[in-house]
């Protein structure tokens, strides 16, 4: 079927109408058959299908992989304990390429093709914001593990929830007093130039102001940037604290170049561990970070006072005391965020049980049952710590950890209280129609 140049030539193909029809008929038969025999007892034994919108490729890929591992561990634990409402849980993974456009398509695909019960698992804020309208249109409950303030801002829609990880605004409010009291009063912010960075840009200055400290400069860096030295001259000389929160594969360069620029006479550093998730803190060039502080949702390194639940969770997910994969010390996890997948799945389980959830026709009931939740106690289902949940803004609030880099490890030096991070609700999703 190739001509002398080696090109395929379809005109010489031997595909006739008859063979084409035969092929089509056979294909259709194959397609129908399994649907016919499967789950003839309707919903009683069919699994609950959770569509997992995963950052398998693109800049979020390191997070995506660990979100998948954590999710697999949580689903295994849930299924071993009898599933949800007596039904097993099945996770269907689709890659969103860490891209908002593709994210919306993936939500649509879950709704129309896979017919999943819910969609779950997104981290990057631009993907959440891009996908949320599709979730609303398809009336598909959409549980994100994103950390951004977009869900709690009530600017998305009633089908979007963030019950497993505290949002940035709350994190900042709870940690601002510590930053002002321990790190310094003149703060320069460095953040990525997109939605997640804007949460920091918008909420840190007022939170610090309330503590008598000031943000003296704000430096936005494009998320695709791979070299950072050129931005550092914008840092004012009187800066006492550099507050950095960076994402994406180039974060290590960012910290290294900061080290080259300042050397030993650096200002205090306070960073979100997002700048170094999935990166070994002992990588060459990071000695510069010694003595600096980081926010951590859940501590990467095992701590002396870890609860039994925390230890069990770490074992189940398969991370060692240094927060790396068991058996591969170089494969560092995204521990500060991925606990949210575990906890979110248990929230979904609780809400589905409260709603007596049977299938996609009960999605509205599931939304209302989730909104009715108020508290999650610390324990095997919530190993990061206790949380409260505000059903009006679909957001949970938990404790935050401030960790210090000491001897090549991160040691928790301060834990905030839930009350420190509570703020006035900006709206109410429950007034929206279902």
């Amino acid at each position, binding site marked *: 079927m190739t001509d002398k*140049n*080696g*090109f395929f030539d379809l005109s010489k193909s031997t595909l006739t109408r008859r063979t084409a029809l035969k092929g089509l008929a056979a294909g259709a038969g194959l397609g129908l058959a399994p649907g016919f025999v499967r789950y003839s007892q309707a919903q009683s034994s069919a699994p609950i299908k959770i569509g997992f919108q995963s950052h398998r*490729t*693109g*800049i979020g*890929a*390191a997070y*995506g*992989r660990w979100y998948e591992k954590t999710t697999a561990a949580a689903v295994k634990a849930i299924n071993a304990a009898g599933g949800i409402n007596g039904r097993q849980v099945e996770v269907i993974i689709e890659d969103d390429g860490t891209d908002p456009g593709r994210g919306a398509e993936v939500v649509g695909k879950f709704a129309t093709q896979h017919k999943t019960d819910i969609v779950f698992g997104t981290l990057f804020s631009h993907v959440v914001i891009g996908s949320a309208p599709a979730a609303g249109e398809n009336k598909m409950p959409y549980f994100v593990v994103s950390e951004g303030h977009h869900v709690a801002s009530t600017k998305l829609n009633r089908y979007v929830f963030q019950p497993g990880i505290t949002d940035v605004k709350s994190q900042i409010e709870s940690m601002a007093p510590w930053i002002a009291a321990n790190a310094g009063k003149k703060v320069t912010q460095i953040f990525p130039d997109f939605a997640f960075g804007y949460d920091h840009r918008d909420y840190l200055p007022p939170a610090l102001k309330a503590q008598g400290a000031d943000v003296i400069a704000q430096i936005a860096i*494009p998320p*695709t*940037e*791979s*070299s950072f*030295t*050129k*931005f*550092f*001259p914008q840092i004012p*000389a009187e800066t006492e604290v550099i507050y950095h929160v960076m994402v994406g*594969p*180039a*974060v*290590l*360069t960012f910290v*290294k*170049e900061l080290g*080259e*620029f*300042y*050397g030993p006479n650096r200002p205090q550093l306070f960073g979100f561990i997002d700048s170094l998730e*999935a*990166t070994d803190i002992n*990588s*060459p*060039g990071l000695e510069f970070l010694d003595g600096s502080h980081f926010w951590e949702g859940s501590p990467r390194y095992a701590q002396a006072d870890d609860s039994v639940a925390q230890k069990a969770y770490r074992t189940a997910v398969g991370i060692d005391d240094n927060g790396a994969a068991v058996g591969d010390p170089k*494969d*560092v996890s995204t521990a500060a965020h991925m606990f949210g997948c575990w906890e979110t799945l248990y929230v979904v389980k609780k809400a589905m049980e409260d709603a007596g959830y049977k299938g996609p026709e009960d999605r509205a009931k599931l939304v209302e049952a989730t909104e009715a939740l108020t508290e999650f106690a610390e324990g095997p289902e919530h190993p990061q710590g206790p949380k409260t949940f505000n059903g009006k803004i679909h957001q949970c609030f938990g404790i935050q950890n401030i960790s210090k880099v000491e001897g090549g490890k991160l040691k928790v030096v301060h834990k905030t209280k839930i009350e420190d991070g509570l703020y006035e609700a900006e709206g109410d999703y429950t007034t929206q129609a279902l």
Partner: protein
Amino acid sequence: MHFGPHLLLAALEGLVTSAVLALTALGLSLVFGVMRVVNVAHGEFFMLGAVLAWAITTAIGGHPALGFLAALVIAPLIVGAIALVAERLVLRRLNYNPEATIVATIGMLYIIQQLALTIYGPEARPVEPPFSYRILLPWFGYSGYKLSVIATSALLLIATWLVLTRTKIGLIMRATQYDSETAQAFGIPVGRVYGGVFALGAMLAAIAAALIVPISQAHYLMGQDPLLLSFIVVIIGGLGSLRGTVVAAVLIGLSDGIISMFFSPTLAKIIATLLVAMVLVFRPQGLFGTASR
């Protein structure tokens, strides 16, 4: 920071970008000049160079300089071999047809990128620089390694130039570039020249990547930016012109460094793209290119 030191820092950053860009773009330019193949997968050979550099330094261990030097030699050789195989298996079978090779190299781009994701993984992994001397200027510190990248790149560019202009291999390559049919008539094995040039182009990208990887980590998506910038450089400098490529790389690198430091990185990209548009309108053969015959 005052204007003077600020400008110095901007220029240094710009020169590092230029140095790496010149090597990468030269590879792209050679492949196009000699073979008339637009190699869309060029950025992926760059990425492969970085990923292999990481693998080699990790495997060797010991003093960082040892692993780095090994990576600087071995990684380009492996990438060159992969490129040669790709050239034999794909491009040659398409008879170097311009349209078909564009589609084929797009395919290569995805295959290489996804293989890297599957085998190497999604993390950005660091390579330790061979030495970590920090040059202390009165206003700021600067990485000594970055300065060495500029020097190394300049040496490699001079070496490439010498090969192209002073050796028989260079003569054969230039003859093939000038008129491949006549070259063939004079007994030059054009097929083998093509294979060699494609491998050499990929190797130049791999060397550039091995040089940059101690500064910015190896990551499976890192080939996209160099590809885009290389195209910009090659279009401005003139396809197939070594001098044009180097001049354009310095121009783009410095303007990127300086504009993005004093204004914004987005503006630097806008200006570079505008420059490409202007060159295409007013001097389609590029600043130093010769009009096609």
